[in-house]
């Protein structure tokens, strides 16, 4: 059976999320309390749109909220997102609730209130900008575990100080490991005696905050 996802609020966020979720085969419904936004959302094929305030219990009831697997609250107001998720959790027993929060200080508070996943747009954006600005050789970095762990892809150029070295010879920060080496078309799980060659792409797993030092050490920049 298709997983059902309920999106509450948020115009452009809701739109792009709906498109990508539908593409991945989810059944998606959007609730929005701005009529014009509803019209925009309704242009998306296969998306059901409900006009109403998603923080009101009767609107959620009309939407048959209890039948959903995931609810994602995307409004611009923290209090609305909190109430939407709490109602979905407590009244409609939706398994997974995701809330967007704009005030970074409230992230922990939202988790404490029982919301399963809290996304703080501001801290996510600032950390991405930081990485882009200071570690431009890093091709891709993915935070997981609420940002406590980072997975980074690091391309090794010919001028990097680690070229030709074995892994155990490299001085990496304590909480960083090289989890995988992508060499031409193959992926290998390295051992201590694996040599790093120019053109390799290293996949690093590191605790948050260690990745920049690790990348500097590996690439020499």
């Amino acid at each position, binding site marked *: 059976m298709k997983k059902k996802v309920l999106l509450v609020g948020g115009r452009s966020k809701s739109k792009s999320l709906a498109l990508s979720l539908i593409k991945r085969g989810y059944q998606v419904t959007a609730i929005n309390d701005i009529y014009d936004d509803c019209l925009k959302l309704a242009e998306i094929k296969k998306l059901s749109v409900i006009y109403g305030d998603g*923080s009101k219990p*009767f609107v959620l009831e009309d939407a048959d909220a209890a039948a959903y697997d995931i609810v994602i609250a995307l409004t611009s107001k923290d209090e609305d997102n*909190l109430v939407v998720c709490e109602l979905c959790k407590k009244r409609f027993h939706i398994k997974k609730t995701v809330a967007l929060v704009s005030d970074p200080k409230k992230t922990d508070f939202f988790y404490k209130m029982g919301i399963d996943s809290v996304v703080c747009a501001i801290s996510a954006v600032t950390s991405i900008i930081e990485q882009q600005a200071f570690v431009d050789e890093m091709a891709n970095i993915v935070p997981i575990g609420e940002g406590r762990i980072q997975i980074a892809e690091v391309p090794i150029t010919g001028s990097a100080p680690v070229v030709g070295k074995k892994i155990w010879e490299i001085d990496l920060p304590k909480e960083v490991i090289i989890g995988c080496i992508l060499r031409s078309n193959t992926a290998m799980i390295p051992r201590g005696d694996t040599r790093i060659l120019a053109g390799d792409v290293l996949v690093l797993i590191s605790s948050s905050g260690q990745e920049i030092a690790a990348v500097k050490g590996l690439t020499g920049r």
Partner: protein
Amino acid sequence: MKLVSSKNLSEYFIIVGCGRLGANLANTLSEEGGNVLIIDKNKEAFRKLSPSFGGLSVAGDGTDFDVLQEAQIDKANVLVVVTNNDNVNVMIAQIAREIFKVNRVIARLYDPERECVYREFGIDTICPAILSAKEIDKMLLRTGSTEKLDKTACELKEGTK
């Protein structure tokens, strides 16, 4: 209106939302000798306070942890949230209970259906619609109204539960 007994005089009250209810409550509590601090986003709202109001006022967003800390929420015995937005009231009440461990939290809730969100947190709620329905019901009973009117009031009460 007697809201606090004399033994409560040294209590510290924080009121969030300086609307008609908030301002009225602040005036009364202050008159009775309580320490009152009132928070509102809009400075202009404090004009509703009476000239004799002896408490403090803080202009700021009551959902902001910094504003609440500035108001010394950790010292408050009672927090009353009466902004005109239910969701804001829910959030502030929960922040006060769960983060700052305020002993007594009272919130106004226009929509009684949201009560399930509050219940397990030990937050007292008052709902104007239910209170009004009860009062009207009482009035109708007192004036010896017809059976039909009684029934309407009861239905109204049931409907808002």
